């Protein structure tokens, strides 16, 4: 049976905390759910997802859903052996600049939301060959 506080579900029957107003303390083994993004010509990245994986089967344009300031997410991108090219639209701002995707196959991409406007998802990308 779910646990409710003033009629709001605090912990549901699947042991999910569905709507935490605030949380303090320390955490130990607490991991992000991993969302697997499907390859397509246009791919939507939601910074609500804390961790995403994407293996490109074709070159693709990536856009983003609006997030909330302070949200962070990680995108694990494999451009594949065919070295497909991702194109991040204006929702994203790369720091210091967008990398050359052809330089590496594997990319760990950190996304930081600094607002809900165009370009407010700040991106840091590190490329790997192996």
């Amino acid at each position, binding site marked *: 049976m779910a646990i409710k506080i003033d009629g709001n579900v605090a912990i549901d029957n699947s042991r999910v905390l569905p709507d935490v107003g605030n949380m303090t303390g320390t955490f*130990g083994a607490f991991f992000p759910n991993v969302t697997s993004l499907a390859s397509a010509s246009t791919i939507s990245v939601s910074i609500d997802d804390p961790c995403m994986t994407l293996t490109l089967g074709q070159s693709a344009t990536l856009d983003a859903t609006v997030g909330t300031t302070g949200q962070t997410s990680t995108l694990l991108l494999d451009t594949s052996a065919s070295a497909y090219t991702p194109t991040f639209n204006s929702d994203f701002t790369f720091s210091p600049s967008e990398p050359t995707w052809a330089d590496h196959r594997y990319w760990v991409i950190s996304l930081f939301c600094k607002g809900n406007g165009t370009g407010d998802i700040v991106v840091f990308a590190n*490329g790997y060959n192996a």
Partner: protein
Amino acid sequence: MAVKINGTIVADLNSSGDSVDFVNITDATGAYDNLRAFTPNIGDVGGPANDTLDFNFSSCSESMTANHTYAESNKSAGRVLLLSLNRNPSGTPYTPTFSANIKWPNDTEPTWADYNNWLICLVCWDSTTVRATASGFGTGTVAETVTLSGTPSSYNSVFGVTSNGVDSLAGWRFKSDGTVFKTNVLGSSYSIQFNAGTEWCNVTPSQTYYLRCTVQAGSLGGGSQPANTWLALTTDRTFEVLDTVAGGSEPTVQIKIEIASDSGGSNILATGYYEATATQESQ
């Protein structure tokens, strides 16, 4: 009393009885304030000999007390471990070795000796491969090197010139702190450092080195140390010429300097050539 959902505990008092542990949570959505990762020292996780990067934690620290080879455990895609690494907590820098599962940008592992403190972000790509970045902070460990310069055909030269009635001094001083000074142009004092930061030792020497001077031409004078013998560089060693006669000959000396790591000179680390000329003008 623990709180259960369908027989599974989801909230319980922690072992100290002063806060609530949420356990067996399958998902959470919302916001947080002062919610922080429990950050154990790696050695605290499984005892002092534990050298495993445990991805059941999001953050850990390590103060190295020996060279370590790090393995990984509990890897799964998306798990991130932030490692704060201090290579030199006791004044002796140690070297970390990471497994081949850890991949670095451009396939290039950082040079750990460059810095003593590192912040290393490790991201699990899957249950095997981890891709990492590392940022170094603070001072590093500079390798100690002994260097001398000059050749038999190109001596390092110093000149000292004084006016009538003032003794002129010219020479080289190899100091115990690893520096080399030469006399100033006025021929009066050792005030000019030569090749600062490189000659003769790039750092304060960590051991006793030994110097030998061999005269190539001319004669040593003034307060020179003896030639043709190995001298401990625990004190300053000076080789110079002194002109005490106005308008007379201008004494010049050419010397070979060798530095060895042992008192017998069997392991010579560097050789250099130096020249000094002192002049007392007559007017």
